[in-house]
């Protein structure tokens, strides 16, 4: 670890801290339908959209109606993306590489993935998706799924803040305002900033260039015998990248335009673009803490939640940075030792799978940020991290994607854990738990626990089946032993957490993985959203009791400490046995000189 590395991590957090408050207050104004400086431009567009779609912007929805609208919208957009993927070869638009139709299992997996804000990719984008599919099928979902998550978080906040109300707002209005006022303006500015750094934005066919140094490659021929060829040219993929890159980060979607994701020089050209991308990932989730404080009338509560998230973020990045700063003990020889242990020309540590442009500190920071939030963009390969370094992204997702978390989903996931925390605090002092003056009763706790339990159930269930099935489960692995187990565990965890990052090393483009990972994403998104909405709907109907001496304060350090404790107990301990079989065991064996090919 270096002072320079820590300075960069501290600089990132300082910028986030500066941006959170204005962002949060702006979003509160947007969702409360108060005046903003963008109204003259966006107001007429909003009214036109409502007129065309027949939405009554002033009608309010019960939680069941809000949930049903969200499900109908998600189902329709999932099927639209599936259709675009299946028909891309037949649509004479923006397919200069003449890419074929996407295979049905893969098309469904991808449609489920982008609908659920997961953006898990079982495919190589530049070899599979036409420009039309990237723009109309995938980038649109980046906006819709992000706006849906934000809408649901706002609905939950309304559930806390409203007094004896049967409604939570209007899903269509929240979806529209989140897209128009929050996502689009920031994406336009960010896309231009990325273009200024070297990100591409075009509809050209792929370029073919002559290599400065021709490469000799030996590969098996048709008859299985090795054939040596000299490669003299390289194909350089093109496309409308910058516009998709901005929402990929801001919407915590994470699906790369190219297979190398944010390690590709077109997706993430410079250290500045790297910093911008990380800030975009955390911007809305951090801002929503302030939105929470403003809308419930307790700014201190918003900051207390922000503090809990920050503590967990820092623990993750410190652990990951420390683990990746260690040289791999199995690498022997003078040359490797010099390169791995830090020298004038080397950043030191484990550089395998990392971009030299970013080094260890910015790779560890990016990996932590992208898995704290349910983003899933990567600028380094998590599979190549040291065992404990790779455990950090995995554990971040296992905690439920609430360390800032996905746009919206991080906030409502955290609020469910706040309910559990308040309940436990109530049990400790023997009083009926109250959250900001609202009584937390059996119904809310039952549904909160349903939300908490669905997550490990789907992850551990599918992981168990996969590791026991050599024909369709473990046959996809590139490594055996605990590392292979981690590859499977990570895939289901990433899918259920709607993160989408891959540990890599697992060939997930099989019927089994495409189908089960698709189901896992849908369950991890929608079957968790619904109990959350039910809790919000129930809380909205309740009276707000005046504060008394027995009220548990939710805006101080004690609350933050208790919340962090509950998150660690609920999230980390649920998965500790699985982590023991994966990265922890691999770490211990690595120290004993054992690795797994």
């Amino acid at each position: 670890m270096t002072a320079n590395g820590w300075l960069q991590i501290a600089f990132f957090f300082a910028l986030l801290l500066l941006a959170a408050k204005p962002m949060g207050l702006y979003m509160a104004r947007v969702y409360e339908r108060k005046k903003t400086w963008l109204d003259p431009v966006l107001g007429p567009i909003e009214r036109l959209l409502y007129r065309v779609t027949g939405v009554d912007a002033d009608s309010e929805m019960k939680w069941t109606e809000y949930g049903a609208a969200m499900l109908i919208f998600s189902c329709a957009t999932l099927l639209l993306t599936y259709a675009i993927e299946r028909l891309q070869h037949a649509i004479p638009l923006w397919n200069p590489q003449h890419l074929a139709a996407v295979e049905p299992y893969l098309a469904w997996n991808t449609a489920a993935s982008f609908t659920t804000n997961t953006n898990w990719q079982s495919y190589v984008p530049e070899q599979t998706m036409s420009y039309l599919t990237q723009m109309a099928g995938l980038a649109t979902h980046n906006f819709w799924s992000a706006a849906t998550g934000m809408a649901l978080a706002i609905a939950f906040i309304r559930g806390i803040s409203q007094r004896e109300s049967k409604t939570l707002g209007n899903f269509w209005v929240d979806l529209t305002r989140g897209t128009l006022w929050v996502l689009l303006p920031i994406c336009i500015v960010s896309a231009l900033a990325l273009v200024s750094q070297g990100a591409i934005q075009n509809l050209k066919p792929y370029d073919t260039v002559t290599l400065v140094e021709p490469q000799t490659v030996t590969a098996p021929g048709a008859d299985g015998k090795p054939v040596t060829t000299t490669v003299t040219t390289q194909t350089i993929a093109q496309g409308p990248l910058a516009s998709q890159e901005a929402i990929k980060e801001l919407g915590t979607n994470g699906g790369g335009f190219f297979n190398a994701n944010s390690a590709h020089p077109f997706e993430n050209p410079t250290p500045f673009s790297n910093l911008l991308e990380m800030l975009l990932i955390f911007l809305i989730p951090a801002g929503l803490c302030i939105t929470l404080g403003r809308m419930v009338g307790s700014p201190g509560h918003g900051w207390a939640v922000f503090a809990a998230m920050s503590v967990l973020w820092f623990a993750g990045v410190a652990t990951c940075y420390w683990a990746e700063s260690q040289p791999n003990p199995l690498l022997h020889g003078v040359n490797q030792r010099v390169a791995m242990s830090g020298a004038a020309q080397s950043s030191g540590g484990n550089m395998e799978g990392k971009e030299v442009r970013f080094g260890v500190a910015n790779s560890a920071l990016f990996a932590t940020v992208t898995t704290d939030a349910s983003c899933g963009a990567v600028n380094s390969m998590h599979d190549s991290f040291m065992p404990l370094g790779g455990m950090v992204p995995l554990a971040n997702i296992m905690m439920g994607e609430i360390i800032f978390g996905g746009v919206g989903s991080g906030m409502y996931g955290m609020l469910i854990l706040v309910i559990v925390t308040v309940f436990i605090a109530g049990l400790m002092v023997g009083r009926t738990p109250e959250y900001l003056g609202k009584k937390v009763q059996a119904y809310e706790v039952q549904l909160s626990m349903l939300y908490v339990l669905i997550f490990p159930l789907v992850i551990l269930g599918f992981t168990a089946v996969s590791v026991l099935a050599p024909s369709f489960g473990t046959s996809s692995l590139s490594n055996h032993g605990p590392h292979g187990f981690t590859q499977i565990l990570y895939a289901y965890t990433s899918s259920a957490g709607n993160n989408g990052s891959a540990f890599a090393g697992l060939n997930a483009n099989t019927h089994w993985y495409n189908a089960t990972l698709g189901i896992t994403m849908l369950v991890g998104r929608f079957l968790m959203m619904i109990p959350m909405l039910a809790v919000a709907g129930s809380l909205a109907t309740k009276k707000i009791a005046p504060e008394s001496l027995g009220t548990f304060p939710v805006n101080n350090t004690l609350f933050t400490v208790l919340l962090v404790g509950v998150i660690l107990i609920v999230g980390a301990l649920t998965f500790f046995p699985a982590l023991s079989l994966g990265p922890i065991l691999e770490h211990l064996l690595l120290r004993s000189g054992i690795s797994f090919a």
Partner: protein
Amino acid sequence: MSDIVFLAASFAFFFVAVLYVYGCQSLKGGGGNA
């Protein structure tokens, strides 16, 4: 054929999700809330 299967699977999932909404709502009756 696969397209029909995936179309049906998608509808089936969202249909179950809608039932789940009403399942969560009906739980309130037995929750013992005042």
